[in-house]
């Protein structure tokens, strides 16, 4: 199942946010979207996942999703979006409640998702009891439980401290290597993009346009080694120089409310 | 009559001015007339009229107030008979002065001009009494500063505390204050300005039941006649005699008003033996209230009296 961004434009009131964005994410591919603050990354992801209707163009799917997938396009949110009144297990089970699964299958799916995210010991904990990292793991477990074809991740690590971020990044690498699941990974962080993605879509400042699509030269499986990391540092550096001027502009923007 | 007993609910206050109702109930005159009467007691005149309007009671017996007239003016009830009157020789409502005001020269009702006087509510019978007094002595109502305090006890307290100069109080409430020397008595409303104080009234549904109203009024009149002939006939200096003949009736009144017989005897409202209504006075009341803006314009006594039942003076 491929996801196609087909000449998508969007505006909020008088604010042009996205301008004619087109690209395709092939089945199983991991695509990072980077761009300066406020360039419309989150808006684009909402449109791709069907949570927002674009003003022009459309998001479409080609090919059937895997038959076992309960929710082919599944979000992972920056702020985790856990129900604070539910335990970790209940949160993971939440999207399965109205699915076609039997109670037993549901339990199995929850257990499996918790195991894959190393959360089995925390199933009865409430979100407030957990560190940010564990909360996002629960968010990921919830996403895995519906067996997505494509994960839509909106800065899933940006609310975490650097060490936790590093730990979860290692987990993402592992999880994305495991199955045939693809991902769109929106981020500000070029290191994350370079370490996770097959290709990187670079958006311009608002209104967001596709400035560049960059392939990462090292195969995903081989990026763990220190040497590979040193090898990718120049790419990261170059990407930074590509967007640095726009990042400065975005940062110096004043909101007149 | 047991086979044709009709039920009726009567709204009254626990005041001696409703004495005939208590007598008729206690001595079974209602029952004799084929009525099974339930008395509903209220703590102010106003709610009796409202309850008659809303159908919570079938018949109301209480003082005429602006509120009652306004309800009647909108056609929700009509007056069917008279009840008590203020009349010379029958002390019921008095003018009372605080000690301080008395010292300062408030000695007679005439002196009330320019004073602070407590009443229950605007448009109440006290208010009207003061209006009559003003007319009688030729000063303006607005010369007095009226202070509405909602309840008798507030008025008594205000008078005792000397935050007002004077108040109108029923003799039952004032007796103890007078005896304790905490207030000074100036005169009686009945002596100064006689008027029709209270009456009997009913809503449209009851009025349509001619049988019921007739029976009820006849039972009431039987009691009124007895009360008049036995008790009122003995009144001298505002006091009824307490003897073998009057005692049973006074005891009945005392039972319903929660007062000892001695107090009941000193607190006998005048009630017409035939239940007549002073229609002229009622019309005057309405005109006065309308002039003050307490009653809506556009109706007179004619419009709110059930002519089929009322015996005019």
């Amino acid at each position: 199942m491929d996801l196609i961004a087909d000449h998508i434009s969007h505006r909020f009131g008088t604010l042009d946010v996205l301008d004619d964005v087109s690209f395709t994410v092939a089945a199983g591919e991991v695509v990072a979207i980077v761009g300066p603050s406020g360039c419309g990354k989150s808006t684009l992801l909402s449109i791709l996942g069907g949570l927002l209707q674009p003003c022009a163009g459309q998001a479409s799917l080609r090919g059937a999703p895997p038959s076992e997938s309960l929710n082919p396009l599944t979000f992972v949110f920056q702020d985790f979006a856990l129900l604070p009144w539910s335990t970790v297990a209940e949160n993971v089970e939440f999207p399965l409640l109205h699915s076609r699964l039997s109670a037993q299958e549901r339990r199995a799916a929850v257990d499996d998702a918790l195991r894959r995210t190393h959360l089995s010991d925390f199933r009865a904990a409430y979100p407030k009891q957990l560190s940010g990292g564990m909360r996002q793991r629960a968010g990921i477990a919830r996403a895995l439980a519906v067996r997505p074809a494509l994960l839509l991740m909106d800065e899933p690590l940006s609310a975490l401290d650097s060490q936790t971020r590093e730990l979860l990044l290692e987990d993402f690498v592992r999880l994305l290597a495991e199955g045939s699941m693809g991902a769109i990974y929106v981020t500000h962080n070029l290191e994350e993009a370079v370490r996770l993605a097959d290709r990187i879509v670079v958006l311009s400042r608002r209104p967001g346009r596709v400035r560049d699509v960059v392939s990462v030269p090292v195969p995903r499986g081989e990026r763990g080694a220190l040497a590979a990391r040193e090898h990718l540092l120049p790419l990261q550096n170059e990407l930074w120089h590509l967007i640095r001027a726009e990042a400065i502009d975005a940062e110096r923007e004043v909101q007149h409310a | 009559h047991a086979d044709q007993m009709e039920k009726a609910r009567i709204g009254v206050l626990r005041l001696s001015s409703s004495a005939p109702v208590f007598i008729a109930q206690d001595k079974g005159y209602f029952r004799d007339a084929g009525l099974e009467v339930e008395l509903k007691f209220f703590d102010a005149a106003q709610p009796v009229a409202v309850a008659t309007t809303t159908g919570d009671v079938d018949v109301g017996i209480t003082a005429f107030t602006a509120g009652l007239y306004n309800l009647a003016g909108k056609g929700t009830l009509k007056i069917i008979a008279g009840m008590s009157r203020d009349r010379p020789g029958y002390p019921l409502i008095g003018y009372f002065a605080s000690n301080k005001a008395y010292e300062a020269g408030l000695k007679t009702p005439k002196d009330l001009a320019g004073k602070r006087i407590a009443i229950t509510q605007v448009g109440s019978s006290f208010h009207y009494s003061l209006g009559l007094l003003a007319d009688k002595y030729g000063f303006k109502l607005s010369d007095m500063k009226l202070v509405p305090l909602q309840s008798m006890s507030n008025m008594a307290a205000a008078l005792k505390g000397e935050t007002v100069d004077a108040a109108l109080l029923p003799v039952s409430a004032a007796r103890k204050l007078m005896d304790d020397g905490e207030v000074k008595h100036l005169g009686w409303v009945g002596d100064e300005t006689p008027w029709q104080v209270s009456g009997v009234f009913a809503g449209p549904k009851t009025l349509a039941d001619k049988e019921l109203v007739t029976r009820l009024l006849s039972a009431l009149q039987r009691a009124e006649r007895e009360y008049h002939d036995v008790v009122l006939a003995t009144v001298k200096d505002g006091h009824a005699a307490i003897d073998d003949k009057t005692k049973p009736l006074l005891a009945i009144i005392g039972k319903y008003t929660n007062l000892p017989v001695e107090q009941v005897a000193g607190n006998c409202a005048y009630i017409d033996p035939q239940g007549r209504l002073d229609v002229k006075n009622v019309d005057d009341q309405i005109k006065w209230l309308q002039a003050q803006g307490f009653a809506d314009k556009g109706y007179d006594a004619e419009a709110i009296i059930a002519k089929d039942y009322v015996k005019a003076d």
Partner: protein
Amino acid sequence: MLDRADVTESPAGDATEVARPVRFRGAGFTPATSRHAGWLALAAALAVWQAAGSLAPVNPLFLPTPVAIARALYQLAISGVLWQHVSVSLLRISAGWALGTASGIVVGFAIGLSRIARSIGISFVSALFPIPKIAVLPLLILWLGIGEAPKVATIALGVFFSTTISVYSGVDAVPRNLIRMAQSFDVPFATIVRRVIWPGALPSILAGFRITASVALMLVVSAEMIGAETGIGTFVLQAGNLMQTDQLMAGIVILSAFGLAVGKLISLLEARLLHWR
């Protein structure tokens, strides 16, 4: 050295397969008010009400029609009685509100800032707050006589407790990090109170004003039950006593309008003082 991918895409998979749009699933849950509809609904309600009153056999005593109410209002207005009532009540409300608010702010700040005041203050406030002020009215009359004093005191009392609570909640809600920041620059206590705690508590204090305004409005009606000759509360109670329902409704409309006006005023005040939010 960037390894540009082909931007004009030739994705894997059968390109002849038809693409279907992603289904939109983000609808709803964004109810916005349209001022328009609100006014329309009010107008419609008034029309139905008027029709019910003038066509169907509803006794106007039970429900005076909007036109009758408007007429009553108009007559009150041109006779000048209205202004008299409103101005007297306004005076009572202002005096009571000002008194209650001033003392509430002082006590609220004390509770918010001092450990002793907090320990003592909170138990007193929580014990006395739930007492309906109307029940205390007789005592106030006993203590203060039947003039203006007990009326103003009733309002002040009601306002005081609400204000105290909203002020100390506001002080408690001032972000501790701002206070720590000020301390880290050796800013003196008084300056911290004036320039950090006061503005930080202001949103909660203003929100409290919204409550105390409605409390004051409610209490002025209760307070004017006893020994008042003028005042919008007296007027309403009198109309109720005299069963003049059109007047009563007119009074209620005035009270409602007054409440709305005060609410508006506080919104303006908020927009002005809290523009930084």
